[in-house]
């Protein structure tokens, strides 16, 4: 189904009629790689990208604020006069920022005001005009539709909403990999039962993806069987993802949970700091493992919303609004804090509780995709209908 669809698109794009009508689908074959990392739970962006010039920040977070940059190793790492980075990222993504391969987009997010995890996650993943909720059409699937030769994959147990749609997308979680329960011999016998059925493509793809994962990961498994010290958690997963995205897949998705810090989230150290540490190390490992194609790769880290600007009664934070996106890649014009910004103080809070959204996620991503893939207006409109791209010059 997948193949025939692509052939159909190719035929369509080659026909003079369609060229005349303005190239709706086909974009030059994508060498470019894109990975979307979704932090589910609404991470506390104000402790990641710290508004160090805001006295109000220190007033609002007496117990959990990250100190202003100083000689102290637990203080924020200054990125510019207004913003600092959480110190736990000193040895992971901070060097990428300094190298100019990483940027942050503060005041980012959606116009969804439900402050509900799942409603906001859904609306982001669907990426449809506000009020529309067709649960069978996620924006990465639509992106895969307009990029010729895109190879999308979700590194998750279930196919996420963002990848649902007309293109068939494989999914496989790389959290733990072991010898597949169904070995190659048994698998080939199972596949033989399907060869003349409508499910043949999926069944073969399912086994093929497993086999690829096995092949790519065999070195890792040999190393671990020799008790080599190996990465853990997301760092390990990110290395595995890089292996697959370097060799084969060009459009990836991964989600990470555990960001809903209502209670005791900590400051320079503590629970949230350890989550940032794991994420930072994972992204750095990914960047390294993507060489030599890191310059063709972009990673965007998003979350459904930010959290309340003030700490709550339990030294945590509650559901908020604006968040901070991370943008990483070998060709990213980084070392900058980009997008619309305002001064962080009491009066600039949205509904007196959280960051406003000045950089709407679809507009920001549309601007990025336009640059990365050279998408035209029609193609962008298929990915994010009715959205005016906001080009932040990220690439």
């Amino acid at each position, binding site marked *: 189904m997948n193949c025939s669809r692509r052939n159909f698109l190719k035929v369509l794009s080659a026909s003079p009629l369609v060229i005349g009508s303005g190239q709706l689908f086909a974009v030059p074959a994508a060498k470019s790689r894109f990975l979307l990392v979704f932090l589910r739970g609404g991470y506390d962006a104000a402790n990641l990208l710290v508004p160090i010039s805001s006295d109000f920040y220190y007033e609002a977070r007496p117990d959990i604020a990250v100190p202003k940059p100083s000689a102290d190793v637990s203080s924020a790492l200054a990125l510019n006069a207004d913003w600092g980075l959480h110190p736990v990222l000193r040895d992971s993504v901070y060097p990428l920022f300094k190298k100019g391969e990483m940027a942050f987009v503060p005041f980012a997010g959606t116009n969804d005001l439900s402050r509900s995890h*799942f409603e906001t996650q859904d609306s982001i993943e669907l990426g449809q005009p506000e009020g529309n909720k067709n649960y069978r059409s996620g924006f990465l699937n639509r992106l895969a539709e307009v990029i010729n030769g895109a190879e999308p994959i979700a590194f998750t147990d279930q196919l996420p909403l963002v990848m*649902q749609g007309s293109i*068939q997308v494989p999914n496989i979680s790389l959290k733990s990999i072991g010898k597949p329960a169904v070995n190659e011999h048994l*698998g080939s*016998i199972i596949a033989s039962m399907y060869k003349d059925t409508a499910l043949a493509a*999926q069944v073969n793809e399912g086994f093929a993806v*497993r086999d690829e994962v096995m092949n790519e990961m065999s070195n890792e498994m040999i190393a671990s069987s020799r008790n080599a010290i190996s990465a853990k958690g997301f760092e390990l997963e990110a290395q595995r993802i890089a292996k697959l995205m370097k060799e084969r897949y060009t459009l990836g998705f991964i989600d990470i949970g555990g960001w809903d810090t209502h209670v*005791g989230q900590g400051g320079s150290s503590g629970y949230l700091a350890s989550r940032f540490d794991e994420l930072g190390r994972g992204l750095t490992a990914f960047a390294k493992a993507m060489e030599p194609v890191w310059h063709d790769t972009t990673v965007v880290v998003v979350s459904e919303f930010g959290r309340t600007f003030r700490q709550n009664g339990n030294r945590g934070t509650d559901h908020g609004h604006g968040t901070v996106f991370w943008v990483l890649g070998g060709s990213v014009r980084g070392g900058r804090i980009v997008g619309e910004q305002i001064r962080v103080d009491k009066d600039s809070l949205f509904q007196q509780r959280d960051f406003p959204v000045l950089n709407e996620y679809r507009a920001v991503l549309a601007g990025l995709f336009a640059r990365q893939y050279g998408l035209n207006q029609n193609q962008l409109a298929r990915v994010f209908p009715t959205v005016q791209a906001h080009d932040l010059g990220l690439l």
Partner: protein
Amino acid sequence: MNTNRCSIRLIALTSCFLLLVLSTLVGSEAFATEPTKTAQEKMSPIDEFRLLNRLTWGVNSSVVDKVTKMGMPAYINEQLNPSAAELPETIQKQIDALSISQQAIPQLIEVAEKRRKAAADITNLDDKKVAIEANQKALYLLARESSTRYILRALYSPNQIQAQMVWFWLNHFSVFQQKAYLRILIGDYEETAIRPYALGKFRDLLGAVAHHPAMLQYLDNEQNAIRHINENYARELMELHTLGVNGGYSQQDVQDLARVLTGVGVNFGDVMPKVQVKLQQYYVRQGFFEFNPNRHDFDNKQFLGQPIVSRGLPELDEVLDRLVRHPSTARFISHKLAVFWVEDEPPVALVSRIAETFKRTDGSISACLQTLFSSPEFLQASGRKFKDPMRYLISAVRLTYDEKPILNPAPILNWLNRLGESLNNRQTPDGYPMTASAWASSGQMATRFEVAKSIGFGNAGLFKPADPQATEVPAFPQLANALYYQFISKMLSPATRKALDQATSSQEWNMFLLSSPEMMYR
């Protein structure tokens, strides 16, 4: 493009067929019953086997024996008018041992509230976190008990159509157990709002759901009050529960329905809210359901083109009546029933006939199913419907172990989770999709084969009791049985037979059979 062309052809074919049938029959009643009788009288044993595979969560030896004795028409009749289900003794014991069977909801809520407050009072943050996590775990276990109970009934209840319709309606009126106190309420929601009406009148079902705290919390109606309007439930009540998204309502109707629903909420405590004296006559409390007239908008309203006379909670009954009598609801529900039972794109004519039954019988669900089961379209669609994960798992375990009671349903819950169709765990109110496109992805298929291996090899842990003291009672899968030789073997494709021949052990053979394309469809 292809699909469109196919469905146009299908419609054309179907209408030709109907014209043919209609021209030979007199009267619409005759049309509804006549072809069935003939079909059922002439049904071969193997067709009967196929039909049973579709009428149940999955065919097994016991149900074949039962229907051989009593006959198909009597079986369907019994299924549509079920008496209380008698479960195997060990299964009933497992259900009785669950805390949701032993403690009433008020008790469970009281305990949870106490624990929540105790955790809130802890000042040491590390201890507080431990306490909160313990509370979360306790809630998680309660929700898991409801799923456990559901799985056991799906596997062993003699009332198989009812069991499936309970799943169908739980999915139609889908709530997400992670929200608010739903992990405590979800078992009661199934027991008191869904199960009693699963084959009854749609209006009763809709009303029970609209009065249950699980739905009122899930779709935020407990927060819906005059001047603090929350449209969430009002919108889904029309879009997902009754009329369907293009069912002929406007944004104004959503707003008006939300006003009707103001004050409809929950109260888990003993304290009655302070209500203005002149409004006290309107106050209603039934269990945790509460109608608080202080929060209600008593101005007159307009709904679906007709006025609603302001009078408190009875306004809700009036709008529910109006919604159920709306032709869009008959069509929407009938279409969904046909997608569930027949095929992903059901014939338009069949949906219309079910909708006619819905209107004629004032929304009798069992009457709609009778129309559906006795239709030629239903019989013709045999083997076309791709099983969703729930059906695949339940049918595989039913076929493999027949009525031998499993001792631990945890592996099934874990598989459901891996396959993304855990019970009461759909975040969004639209429920899980019921069509092949949602469930036939490559990752899904690969995981199914792993499950097939676990079941086929007999090492899945289904007979390892959760109690670590208890010993595992080995139970080897019995798939190469009389049922196989009498029916299944005759339905297999040459490719499947060839694969089975390559098995080098009975375990491999089991795995291949459970992995076969024939097991993926019904």
